[in-house]
Protein backbone atom coordinates (compact mmCIF):
# COMPACT_ATOMS: atom_id res chain seq x y z
CA UNK A 1 0.00 0.00 0.00
CA UNK A 2 1.29 3.48 -0.89
CA UNK A 3 1.57 5.73 2.14
CA UNK A 4 -0.27 9.09 2.00
CA UNK A 5 1.77 12.00 0.50
CA UNK A 6 2.39 13.58 3.90
CA UNK A 7 4.23 10.43 4.97
CA UNK A 8 6.29 10.18 1.79
CA UNK A 9 7.52 13.77 1.98
CA UNK A 10 11.24 13.90 2.70
CA UNK A 11 11.77 17.50 3.83
CA UNK A 12 14.90 19.27 2.66
CA UNK A 13 16.12 22.76 3.36
CA UNK A 14 15.36 25.12 0.45
CA UNK A 15 18.58 25.91 -1.44
CA UNK A 16 18.49 29.57 -0.43
CA UNK A 17 18.73 28.78 3.25
CA UNK A 18 21.58 28.19 5.62
CA UNK A 19 21.07 26.39 8.93
CA UNK A 20 23.75 27.26 11.41
CA UNK A 21 24.47 27.33 15.09
CA UNK A 22 25.12 30.77 16.49
CA UNK A 23 27.67 30.32 19.24
CA UNK A 24 27.59 34.03 20.13
CA UNK A 25 23.85 34.01 20.87
CA UNK A 26 23.65 30.34 21.88
CA UNK A 27 20.90 29.48 19.41
CA UNK A 28 20.24 27.90 16.03
CA UNK A 29 19.45 30.09 13.04
CA UNK A 30 17.96 29.82 9.61
CA UNK A 31 19.61 32.45 7.45
CA UNK A 32 17.78 33.66 4.31
CA UNK A 33 18.74 36.19 1.65
CA UNK A 34 17.19 39.09 3.55
CA UNK A 35 16.38 37.81 7.02
CA UNK A 36 17.41 35.64 9.91
CA UNK A 37 15.03 33.28 11.72
CA UNK A 38 15.89 32.27 15.28
CA UNK A 39 14.97 28.60 15.84
CA UNK A 40 13.89 28.25 19.42
CA UNK A 41 14.22 25.16 21.59
CA UNK A 42 15.17 22.08 19.59
CA UNK A 43 14.03 23.60 16.28
CA UNK A 44 17.56 23.46 14.93
CA UNK A 45 17.88 19.75 15.71
CA UNK A 46 14.64 19.07 13.85
CA UNK A 47 15.70 21.08 10.79
CA UNK A 48 19.12 19.42 10.76
CA UNK A 49 17.38 16.12 10.04
CA UNK A 50 15.69 17.59 6.95
CA UNK A 51 18.27 16.38 4.44
CA UNK A 52 15.89 15.08 1.80
CA UNK A 53 16.40 11.42 2.73
CA UNK A 54 14.23 11.09 5.84
CA UNK A 55 10.43 11.00 5.79
CA UNK A 56 8.47 12.91 8.42
CA UNK A 57 7.64 9.69 10.31
CA UNK A 58 11.34 8.84 10.10
CA UNK A 59 12.30 12.20 11.60
CA UNK A 60 9.70 11.80 14.33
CA UNK A 61 11.05 8.32 15.10
CA UNK A 62 14.63 9.52 15.42
CA UNK A 63 13.66 12.45 17.62
CA UNK A 64 11.51 10.21 19.85
CA UNK A 65 14.55 8.07 20.52
CA UNK A 66 16.71 11.09 21.21
CA UNK A 67 14.20 12.89 23.40
CA UNK A 68 12.22 10.18 25.23
CA UNK A 69 8.99 11.51 26.64
CA UNK A 70 8.96 14.68 24.53
CA UNK A 71 5.73 15.32 22.57
CA UNK A 72 7.55 14.82 19.28
CA UNK A 73 4.75 13.14 17.32
CA UNK A 74 2.33 15.88 18.34
CA UNK A 75 4.51 18.88 17.48
CA UNK A 76 7.14 18.06 14.86
CA UNK A 77 4.89 17.36 11.82
CA UNK A 78 3.08 20.68 12.34
CA UNK A 79 6.40 22.49 12.80
CA UNK A 80 7.77 21.03 9.56
CA UNK A 81 4.57 21.90 7.74
CA UNK A 82 4.79 25.51 8.94
CA UNK A 83 8.35 25.72 7.61
CA UNK A 84 7.17 24.30 4.29
CA UNK A 85 4.43 26.92 4.07
CA UNK A 86 7.06 29.61 4.55
CA UNK A 87 8.98 28.12 1.64
CA UNK A 88 11.93 27.15 3.83
CA UNK A 89 11.52 23.42 3.37
CA UNK A 90 10.85 21.71 0.06
Amino acid sequence: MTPPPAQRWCPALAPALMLRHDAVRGTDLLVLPERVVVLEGHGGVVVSLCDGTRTVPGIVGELSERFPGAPVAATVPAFLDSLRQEGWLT
Partner: protein
Amino acid sequence: MTTRVNPASVAAPAPPWALLAELTHACPLHCPYCSNPLELTRRSTELGTDEWTDVLRQAGELGVVHTHLSGGEPLLRPDLERIVAAAEAAGIYTQLVTSGTGLDEARLAALTGAGLRSVQLSVQHAGPEANDRIAGRPASFAAKERAAALVRRAGIPLGLNVVLHRDNLDAVDAVIDLGLAWGADRIELANAQFYGWGLLNRAALLPTRDQLARARETVERRREEVAGRIDLVWVVPDYFDGVAKPCMGGWGAVSLTVAPDGTVLPCPAAASLPDLDPPNVRDHRLAWIWERSPAFDRFRGTDWMTGPCRGCPRQEEDFGGCRCQAFALTGDAARTDPACALSPDHHLVRNPADGDRTDPPPYVYRRPGAVPATNP
Protein backbone atom coordinates in the same frame (compact mmCIF):
# COMPACT_ATOMS: atom_id res chain seq x y z
CA MET B 1 30.74 55.61 50.02
CA THR B 2 29.18 53.69 47.16
CA THR B 3 29.44 54.22 43.50
CA ARG B 4 26.30 53.71 41.54
CA VAL B 5 26.68 52.43 38.05
CA ASN B 6 23.98 52.33 35.43
CA PRO B 7 24.06 48.74 34.12
CA ALA B 8 22.92 49.92 30.69
CA SER B 9 26.07 51.96 30.28
CA VAL B 10 28.33 49.07 31.29
CA ALA B 11 26.79 46.10 29.49
CA ALA B 12 28.09 45.48 26.00
CA PRO B 13 25.53 46.22 23.30
CA ALA B 14 23.79 43.27 21.65
CA PRO B 15 25.95 41.87 18.85
CA PRO B 16 25.37 42.97 15.24
CA TRP B 17 23.50 40.68 12.85
CA ALA B 18 24.66 42.09 9.54
CA LEU B 19 27.63 43.69 7.85
CA LEU B 20 27.45 45.77 4.68
CA ALA B 21 30.82 45.38 2.95
CA GLU B 22 31.43 48.22 0.51
CA LEU B 23 34.27 46.47 -1.28
CA THR B 24 34.93 49.34 -3.67
CA HIS B 25 33.35 52.64 -4.62
CA ALA B 26 34.32 52.11 -8.26
CA CYS B 27 31.25 51.47 -10.39
CA PRO B 28 30.37 51.26 -14.09
CA LEU B 29 27.01 52.89 -13.27
CA HIS B 30 26.46 56.53 -12.34
CA CYS B 31 23.04 56.52 -10.68
CA PRO B 32 22.11 59.98 -9.39
CA TYR B 33 20.82 58.60 -6.05
CA CYS B 34 23.84 56.41 -5.27
CA SER B 35 24.14 55.52 -1.57
CA ASN B 36 27.92 55.95 -1.64
CA PRO B 37 29.20 59.18 -0.11
CA LEU B 38 29.83 62.25 -2.29
CA GLU B 39 33.53 61.83 -1.66
CA LEU B 40 34.22 58.42 -3.15
CA THR B 41 37.05 56.34 -1.76
CA ARG B 42 40.00 55.95 -4.12
CA ARG B 43 40.91 52.46 -5.24
CA SER B 44 44.48 52.86 -3.99
CA THR B 45 43.23 53.08 -0.40
CA GLU B 46 40.98 50.01 -0.55
CA LEU B 47 41.42 47.15 1.92
CA GLY B 48 43.29 44.18 0.48
CA THR B 49 42.17 40.56 0.38
CA ASP B 50 43.89 39.67 3.66
CA GLU B 51 42.36 42.68 5.39
CA TRP B 52 38.83 41.76 4.25
CA THR B 53 39.46 38.16 5.28
CA ASP B 54 40.42 39.33 8.75
CA VAL B 55 37.44 41.73 8.97
CA LEU B 56 35.03 38.91 8.08
CA ARG B 57 36.65 36.54 10.58
CA GLN B 58 36.28 39.16 13.30
CA ALA B 59 32.71 39.87 12.19
CA GLY B 60 31.78 36.19 12.53
CA GLU B 61 33.28 36.08 16.01
CA LEU B 62 31.34 39.20 16.92
CA GLY B 63 28.01 37.64 15.90
CA VAL B 64 27.50 38.82 12.31
CA VAL B 65 25.57 36.15 10.37
CA HIS B 66 24.80 38.00 7.15
CA THR B 67 26.84 40.12 4.78
CA HIS B 68 25.90 42.14 1.73
CA LEU B 69 28.93 42.28 -0.55
CA SER B 70 28.35 45.58 -2.21
CA GLY B 71 30.05 48.61 -3.67
CA GLY B 72 30.20 50.45 -5.99
CA GLU B 73 30.36 47.35 -8.10
CA PRO B 74 31.87 44.45 -6.13
CA LEU B 75 32.54 42.47 -9.33
CA LEU B 76 35.33 44.98 -10.03
CA ARG B 77 37.28 43.33 -7.20
CA PRO B 78 39.30 40.53 -8.80
CA ASP B 79 39.52 38.89 -5.34
CA LEU B 80 35.74 38.78 -4.80
CA GLU B 81 35.74 34.98 -4.85
CA ARG B 82 38.32 34.93 -2.05
CA ILE B 83 36.28 37.43 -0.03
CA VAL B 84 33.17 35.25 -0.46
CA ALA B 85 35.18 32.23 0.67
CA ALA B 86 36.39 34.17 3.72
CA ALA B 87 32.81 35.04 4.68
CA GLU B 88 31.74 31.42 4.19
CA ALA B 89 34.63 30.24 6.35
CA ALA B 90 33.50 32.69 9.05
CA GLY B 91 29.99 31.18 8.93
CA ILE B 92 28.53 34.31 7.33
CA TYR B 93 25.76 34.12 4.70
CA THR B 94 26.73 36.08 1.59
CA GLN B 95 24.59 38.12 -0.76
CA LEU B 96 26.14 39.84 -3.76
CA VAL B 97 24.70 43.29 -4.48
CA THR B 98 25.52 44.06 -8.09
CA SER B 99 24.63 46.12 -11.15
CA GLY B 100 25.05 42.94 -13.21
CA THR B 101 27.81 44.46 -15.33
CA GLY B 102 30.76 42.08 -15.47
CA LEU B 103 28.90 38.94 -14.44
CA ASP B 104 29.41 36.00 -16.76
CA GLU B 105 28.87 32.28 -16.35
CA ALA B 106 32.43 31.49 -15.27
CA ARG B 107 32.52 34.29 -12.71
CA LEU B 108 29.20 33.28 -11.20
CA ALA B 109 30.31 29.65 -11.05
CA ALA B 110 33.47 30.69 -9.23
CA LEU B 111 31.46 32.79 -6.79
CA THR B 112 28.88 30.10 -6.02
CA GLY B 113 31.73 27.61 -5.75
CA ALA B 114 33.26 29.86 -3.10
CA GLY B 115 29.98 29.86 -1.18
CA LEU B 116 27.92 32.74 -2.57
CA ARG B 117 24.31 32.22 -1.46
CA SER B 118 22.21 34.85 -3.21
CA VAL B 119 22.27 37.82 -5.57
CA GLN B 120 20.57 41.18 -5.43
CA LEU B 121 20.52 42.89 -8.81
CA SER B 122 19.89 46.61 -9.18
CA VAL B 123 17.43 47.69 -11.86
CA GLN B 124 16.89 51.34 -12.70
CA HIS B 125 13.76 51.01 -14.87
CA ALA B 126 11.73 48.33 -16.66
CA GLY B 127 12.51 49.91 -20.02
CA PRO B 128 16.02 49.44 -21.47
CA GLU B 129 16.43 53.03 -22.67
CA ALA B 130 15.17 54.62 -19.48
CA ASN B 131 17.23 52.17 -17.40
CA ASP B 132 20.42 53.08 -19.25
CA ARG B 133 19.69 56.80 -19.05
CA ILE B 134 19.16 56.71 -15.26
CA ALA B 135 22.21 54.46 -14.77
CA GLY B 136 24.28 56.74 -17.01
CA ARG B 137 25.63 53.74 -18.93
CA PRO B 138 24.73 52.33 -22.33
CA ALA B 139 23.70 48.67 -22.59
CA SER B 140 23.41 48.38 -18.82
CA PHE B 141 19.89 46.91 -19.07
CA ALA B 142 21.08 44.14 -21.40
CA ALA B 143 23.82 43.24 -18.90
CA LYS B 144 21.22 43.00 -16.13
CA GLU B 145 18.99 40.76 -18.22
CA ARG B 146 21.91 38.42 -18.87
CA ALA B 147 22.94 38.48 -15.20
CA ALA B 148 19.41 37.64 -14.05
CA ALA B 149 19.28 34.64 -16.41
CA LEU B 150 22.66 33.41 -15.15
CA VAL B 151 21.60 33.66 -11.51
CA ARG B 152 18.35 31.83 -12.29
CA ARG B 153 20.26 29.08 -14.03
CA ALA B 154 22.65 28.79 -11.08
CA GLY B 155 19.61 28.13 -8.89
CA ILE B 156 20.33 30.68 -6.20
CA PRO B 157 17.83 33.31 -5.04
CA LEU B 158 17.50 36.46 -7.13
CA GLY B 159 16.29 39.76 -5.76
CA LEU B 160 15.78 42.93 -7.75
CA ASN B 161 16.49 46.23 -6.07
CA VAL B 162 14.78 49.22 -7.65
CA VAL B 163 15.26 52.72 -6.26
CA LEU B 164 12.01 54.58 -7.01
CA HIS B 165 11.77 58.24 -7.96
CA ARG B 166 10.09 60.64 -10.35
CA ASP B 167 11.45 58.95 -13.48
CA ASN B 168 10.38 55.38 -12.74
CA LEU B 169 7.49 55.43 -10.24
CA ASP B 170 5.00 55.35 -13.12
CA ALA B 171 6.64 52.12 -14.31
CA VAL B 172 6.15 50.09 -11.12
CA ASP B 173 3.65 47.81 -12.86
CA ALA B 174 6.19 47.11 -15.60
CA VAL B 175 8.95 46.57 -13.02
CA ILE B 176 6.85 43.87 -11.36
CA ASP B 177 6.25 42.28 -14.79
CA LEU B 178 9.99 42.37 -15.35
CA GLY B 179 10.57 40.61 -12.04
CA LEU B 180 8.12 37.88 -13.08
CA ALA B 181 9.76 37.53 -16.50
CA TRP B 182 13.25 37.33 -15.01
CA GLY B 183 12.18 34.86 -12.32
CA ALA B 184 13.01 37.06 -9.34
CA ASP B 185 12.15 35.81 -5.87
CA ARG B 186 11.93 39.28 -4.42
CA ILE B 187 11.60 42.87 -5.58
CA GLU B 188 12.61 45.65 -3.27
CA LEU B 189 10.86 48.84 -4.31
CA ALA B 190 12.89 51.38 -2.37
CA ASN B 191 11.69 54.94 -2.57
CA ALA B 192 14.71 57.19 -2.99
CA GLN B 193 16.36 58.55 0.14
CA PHE B 194 17.60 62.09 0.02
CA TYR B 195 21.06 62.51 1.42
CA GLY B 196 24.41 62.40 -0.33
CA TRP B 197 23.89 61.99 -4.09
CA GLY B 198 20.13 61.74 -3.64
CA LEU B 199 19.98 65.11 -1.89
CA LEU B 200 22.19 66.64 -4.56
CA ASN B 201 19.67 65.42 -7.16
CA ARG B 202 16.56 65.91 -5.05
CA ALA B 203 14.90 68.38 -7.39
CA ALA B 204 15.26 65.92 -10.26
CA LEU B 205 14.24 62.82 -8.29
CA LEU B 206 11.38 63.91 -6.01
CA PRO B 207 8.11 62.46 -7.26
CA THR B 208 4.69 64.03 -6.94
CA ARG B 209 2.19 62.83 -4.35
CA ASP B 210 -0.05 61.61 -7.19
CA GLN B 211 2.74 59.47 -8.62
CA LEU B 212 3.37 57.92 -5.24
CA ALA B 213 -0.30 57.28 -4.56
CA ARG B 214 -0.67 55.49 -7.91
CA ALA B 215 2.47 53.42 -7.39
CA ARG B 216 1.38 52.44 -3.91
CA GLU B 217 -2.02 51.31 -5.24
CA THR B 218 -0.31 49.29 -7.96
CA VAL B 219 1.91 47.52 -5.46
CA GLU B 220 -1.03 46.69 -3.21
CA ARG B 221 -3.06 45.41 -6.15
CA ARG B 222 -0.28 43.20 -7.44
CA ARG B 223 0.98 41.97 -4.10
CA GLU B 224 -1.79 39.37 -3.89
CA GLU B 225 -1.42 38.37 -7.53
CA VAL B 226 2.28 37.54 -7.17
CA ALA B 227 2.05 36.15 -3.63
CA GLY B 228 3.99 32.90 -3.34
CA ARG B 229 6.07 33.78 -6.41
CA ILE B 230 7.60 37.17 -5.65
CA ASP B 231 8.06 38.87 -2.32
CA LEU B 232 7.24 42.54 -2.94
CA VAL B 233 8.87 44.95 -0.50
CA TRP B 234 7.86 48.62 -0.47
CA VAL B 235 10.32 50.92 1.32
CA VAL B 236 8.33 53.95 2.42
CA PRO B 237 8.90 57.44 1.00
CA ASP B 238 9.71 59.25 4.22
CA TYR B 239 9.37 62.73 2.67
CA PHE B 240 5.69 62.11 2.06
CA ASP B 241 4.33 60.03 4.90
CA GLY B 242 5.16 62.34 7.83
CA VAL B 243 6.70 59.35 9.60
CA ALA B 244 10.43 58.89 10.12
CA LYS B 245 11.90 55.60 8.99
CA PRO B 246 13.52 53.31 11.59
CA CYS B 247 16.88 53.95 10.00
CA MET B 248 19.18 50.88 10.15
CA GLY B 249 16.97 49.47 12.90
CA GLY B 250 18.65 51.93 15.23
CA TRP B 251 22.16 53.36 15.38
CA GLY B 252 24.68 50.66 16.21
CA ALA B 253 21.85 48.21 16.93
CA VAL B 254 21.64 45.69 14.09
CA SER B 255 24.25 46.27 11.47
CA LEU B 256 27.51 47.94 10.54
CA THR B 257 29.04 49.16 7.31
CA VAL B 258 32.68 48.74 6.37
CA ALA B 259 33.71 51.24 3.69
CA PRO B 260 36.31 50.36 1.02
CA ASP B 261 39.18 51.90 3.03
CA GLY B 262 38.22 50.10 6.27
CA THR B 263 36.26 52.93 7.86
CA VAL B 264 33.46 51.43 9.94
CA LEU B 265 30.14 53.23 10.06
CA PRO B 266 26.74 52.62 11.66
CA CYS B 267 25.19 53.26 8.24
CA PRO B 268 26.62 53.85 4.75
CA ALA B 269 25.61 57.52 4.77
CA ALA B 270 27.21 58.32 8.14
CA ALA B 271 30.48 59.32 6.47
CA SER B 272 28.71 62.65 5.87
CA LEU B 273 28.59 63.50 9.60
CA PRO B 274 31.51 65.88 10.07
CA ASP B 275 32.44 65.27 13.72
CA LEU B 276 31.80 61.54 13.94
CA ASP B 277 35.47 60.53 13.72
CA PRO B 278 34.60 57.00 12.56
CA PRO B 279 36.97 54.19 13.55
CA ASN B 280 38.87 52.07 11.04
CA VAL B 281 39.61 48.33 11.01
CA ARG B 282 43.22 49.22 10.27
CA ASP B 283 43.45 50.78 13.76
CA HIS B 284 41.00 48.84 15.93
CA ARG B 285 39.44 45.42 16.43
CA LEU B 286 35.87 45.19 15.14
CA ALA B 287 34.62 44.19 18.62
CA TRP B 288 36.05 47.40 20.13
CA ILE B 289 34.54 49.42 17.31
CA TRP B 290 31.08 47.92 17.84
CA GLU B 291 31.09 47.80 21.62
CA ARG B 292 33.30 50.66 22.72
CA SER B 293 33.95 53.25 20.02
CA PRO B 294 32.45 56.71 20.62
CA ALA B 295 31.15 56.79 17.04
CA PHE B 296 28.96 53.70 17.53
CA ASP B 297 27.84 54.87 20.97
CA ARG B 298 26.97 58.35 19.76
CA PHE B 299 23.28 57.82 18.89
CA ARG B 300 22.76 54.39 20.41
CA GLY B 301 19.63 53.92 22.50
CA THR B 302 17.49 56.93 23.39
CA ASP B 303 19.58 59.05 25.79
CA TRP B 304 20.89 61.30 23.01
CA MET B 305 17.43 62.26 21.80
CA THR B 306 16.27 65.86 21.67
CA GLY B 307 13.05 67.73 20.93
CA PRO B 308 9.86 65.76 20.30
CA CYS B 309 11.76 62.44 20.34
CA ARG B 310 12.28 62.78 24.09
CA GLY B 311 9.55 60.76 25.75
CA CYS B 312 7.88 60.04 22.40
CA PRO B 313 5.98 56.72 22.39
CA ARG B 314 7.49 55.95 18.98
CA GLN B 315 11.10 56.39 20.06
CA GLU B 316 11.67 52.61 20.24
CA GLU B 317 9.97 52.13 16.85
CA ASP B 318 11.72 54.68 14.66
CA PHE B 319 14.76 55.46 16.87
CA GLY B 320 14.40 59.15 16.04
CA GLY B 321 14.62 58.49 12.30
CA CYS B 322 17.72 59.08 10.25
CA ARG B 323 20.69 60.90 11.79
CA CYS B 324 22.22 61.64 8.41
CA GLN B 325 19.00 63.21 7.16
CA ALA B 326 18.71 65.29 10.35
CA PHE B 327 22.24 66.54 9.79
CA ALA B 328 21.87 67.10 6.05
CA LEU B 329 18.75 69.22 6.48
CA THR B 330 19.28 70.97 9.84
CA GLY B 331 23.04 70.86 10.40
CA ASP B 332 22.50 69.02 13.70
CA ALA B 333 22.62 65.22 13.65
CA ALA B 334 20.98 64.99 17.10
CA ARG B 335 17.75 66.70 16.06
CA THR B 336 14.56 64.81 15.31
CA ASP B 337 14.51 63.62 11.70
CA PRO B 338 12.63 66.34 9.77
CA ALA B 339 10.68 63.56 8.01
CA CYS B 340 8.66 63.20 11.23
CA ALA B 341 5.53 65.37 11.24
CA LEU B 342 6.27 66.17 14.90
CA SER B 343 9.65 67.69 14.03
CA PRO B 344 9.87 71.49 14.27
CA ASP B 345 11.88 71.21 11.03
CA HIS B 346 9.23 69.20 9.16
CA HIS B 347 8.73 72.04 6.66
CA LEU B 348 12.21 71.18 5.34
CA VAL B 349 10.78 68.01 3.79
CA ARG B 350 7.16 69.08 3.38
CA ASN B 351 7.93 72.16 1.30
CA PRO B 352 10.02 70.37 -1.31
CA ALA B 353 7.59 67.41 -1.29
CA ASP B 354 4.67 69.71 -2.08
CA GLY B 355 6.60 72.21 -4.19
CA ASP B 356 6.23 72.84 -7.88
CA ARG B 357 8.43 70.49 -9.86
CA THR B 358 7.23 71.01 -13.40
CA ASP B 359 10.72 71.68 -14.71
CA PRO B 360 13.20 69.32 -13.03
CA PRO B 361 16.92 69.91 -13.53
CA PRO B 362 19.17 67.34 -15.24
CA TYR B 363 20.88 64.71 -13.10
CA VAL B 364 24.28 65.23 -11.56
CA TYR B 365 25.55 61.72 -12.26
CA ARG B 366 27.57 59.96 -9.59
CA ARG B 367 31.22 59.92 -10.58
CA PRO B 368 34.47 60.95 -8.89
CA GLY B 369 34.93 64.71 -9.07
CA ALA B 370 31.28 65.42 -9.94
CA VAL B 371 31.09 67.65 -6.88
CA PRO B 372 33.98 69.68 -5.48
CA ALA B 373 35.61 68.02 -2.47
CA THR B 374 34.87 69.76 0.82
CA ASN B 375 37.70 70.79 3.06
CA PRO B 376 37.60 69.37 6.58
